[in-house]
């Protein structure tokens, strides 16, 4: 990864990527004019940004950017040896780029984690509801609807408060708080946000399963003696996956944005973890100063990530639609 190299001459990730995505915005027109038989440049740029941000997130602990939990140590964390802070420093003197890359870890883990959870749980129950039908469909669809009816923000607040705040213990005559690990906070957040992605993915899976189950090859497989499980997972699921992935990719973006909302309310990831949402929340005050870029940097990161995910989701859908219609 070029942007992670310690070479001071290389452009920072921000600049490369911003320039890259700027052309993404113009690209879809050209791509959609002709059927996207192959990956267009826009798709490559979107994929490039996502891969860059994921790789950077994975590698950030190994390239000298240690997250010690000590606020002041971040000051030394400039990714470039000469100590220049390409995206500036925040009000505590921490390098903004280092913070953003650390933030990518939490934000992407949250996004992918809760969508993966939704894919597994929602996908499984959606498949069962769509294929088995009758009472299974009634019960599962009912549960999905209940999940959708619960206000997400309130639920996330309740879950995080109940499960991942510092737990009070009475020790002798005084109350002590045992801190909750950041990992636990992250897991609780993933589940809280998955409550939203699960029914959405479940319903998409159910609808597609119903459509594909009507196809003759499903009947043909049954006529060859395949059982319900076999038909669901071998015949129907592979056909439903493209739709699930295309919605799932959109879902990751939604979850990343939702985490930002939670962070602003103070229930984002736990110290010393940082997410893009937490960075937005902690730099809120900067908007009225000449340090406003500190607020906009995480916003741009979220924006580019969501844009890339949406664009890739569209590409996935378009590609699979093309193959379906040529059949």
């Amino acid at each position, binding site marked *: 990864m070029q942007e992670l190299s310690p070479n001071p001459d290389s452009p920072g990730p921000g600049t490369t990527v911003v320039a890259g995505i700027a052309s993404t915005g113009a690209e879809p027109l050209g791509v959609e004019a002709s059927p996207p038989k192959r990956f267009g440049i826009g798709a490559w740029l979107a994929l490039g940004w996502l891969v860059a941000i994921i790789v950077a997130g994975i590698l950030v602990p190994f390239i000298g950017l240690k997250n010690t939990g000590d606020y002041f140590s971040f000051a030394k964390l400039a990714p470039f040896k000469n100590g220049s802070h390409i995206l500036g420093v925040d009000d505590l003197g921490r390098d903004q780029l280092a913070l953003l890359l650390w933030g990518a870890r939490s934000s992407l883990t949250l996004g992918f984690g809760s969508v993966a959870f939704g894919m597994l749980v929602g996908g499984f129950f959606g498949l069962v509801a769509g294929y088995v039908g*009758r009472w299974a469909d009634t019960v599962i669809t009912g549960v999905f609807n209940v999940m959708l009816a619960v206000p997400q923000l309130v639920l996330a607040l309740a879950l995080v408060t109940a499960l991942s705040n510092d737990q009070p213990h009475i020790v002798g005559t005084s109350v002590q708080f045992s801190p909750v690990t950041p990992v636990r906070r992250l897991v609780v957040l993933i589940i809280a946000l998955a409550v939203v992605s699960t029914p959405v993915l479940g319903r998409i899976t159910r609808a597609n399963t119903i459509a594909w189950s009507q*196809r*003759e*090859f499903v*009947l*043909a*497989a*049954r*006529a*060859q*003696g*395949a*059982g319900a499980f*076999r038909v669901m997972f*071998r*015949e129907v699921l*592979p*056909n439903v996956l493209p739709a699930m992935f295309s919605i799932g990719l959109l879902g990751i973006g939604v979850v990343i944005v939702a985490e930002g909302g939670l962070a602003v309310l103070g229930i984002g990831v736990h110290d010393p973890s940082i997410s893009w949402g937490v960075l937005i929340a902690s730099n809120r005050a900067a908007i009225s100063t000449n340090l406003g870029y500190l607020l906009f940097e995480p916003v741009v990161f979220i924006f580019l990530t969501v844009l890339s995910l949406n664009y890739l989701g569209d590409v996935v859908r378009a590609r699979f639609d093309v*193959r*379906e219609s*040529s*059949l």
Partner: protein
Amino acid sequence: MTGSPSGEPLLQLRDVTTAFKTPRGLVRAVDGVTFTLERGKTLGVVGESGCGKSVLSKSIMGLLPKRNVVRGGSIRYEGVEIGDAASGALRSLWGTQMAMVFQDPMTALNPVMKVGKQITESLRHHLDVTRQFADETALELLTSVGIPEPHRRMNQYAFEMSGGMRQRVMIAIALACGPKLLFADEPTTALDVTVQAQILDLLQEQQRERFMAMILVTHDLGVVAGRTDDIMVMYAGKAIEKAPTRTLFAEMRHPYTEALLKSIPRLDQPSHSHLDAIGGRPPDLVKPPKGCRFAPRCPYAQPRCFEEEPPLTERETPGHSFACFYPVGTPEGAEALARNQSAAAVAAPAPAPASAPAVNGGN
């Protein structure tokens, strides 16, 4: 199921009824069908669209959904009643005892699974063989259904093949576990005319080689002509004529059978001659007409046909049964036709004399 040849026929249907519950009422798609199919024989089921042909084969296999379907009568496979069996019990028959070749090979293959895999699936599932053995069997099957370069085709997807090729793959899938009974539900309808004969010949050849019984469902009498042992003609859910193939073509008795045959264009007809289509449509199966169901469209129909339903009975030739009061090729039938034709002759020119004076008056 050891295939005991203990006098029990392979498949025996008695008075089989299949009806669908709809908001409009009960649709009797198959209404009291009775026949017997011996091992290694071929039965052709012929009729127009919507006459219950496809429902019949799906009903025998038990592939129809449980919900909203009312079934009656008895279906015995090798002497065992399967008409009321749960689909779980039937599943052990599917693939290994009976298999089906579907109408449309475009939709009957899984688009995202390699065709080789689709053949080996059921082999591995039913016969519990090793992957290598299943692959070899699949190769043999593909070769035997006439697919060139089977090695390459194994690793292709359905969309990489032509329609005829896909139907060959469908046949290979159906034959994989060596069924004793093969349903071919209009196997050539979705195919090019040039490929149709090839596929039918392939089916016939496989059927003979494997001593497999086959039920060939079609709307085309020409398709079944040389390829079946018996033919059953269905109309509006009922079997109306049943005979050995030779007998049926030699002395067809039911007016509907005759009409079906006449509706096929023939080379010996002069060009641009009018094709004898059957007027009207099959009746509404929610409220089938009283009497003979074909009567409203029948050139032989007499008042009695609208009142009384003719029973399916065997008459002069053994094995040949039909349901008609005024059969084709009999004195009664000829008389009925003549009566209708003269009545039509009277009715048709009737407006002519009425208009003639009008023309005169104009002058």
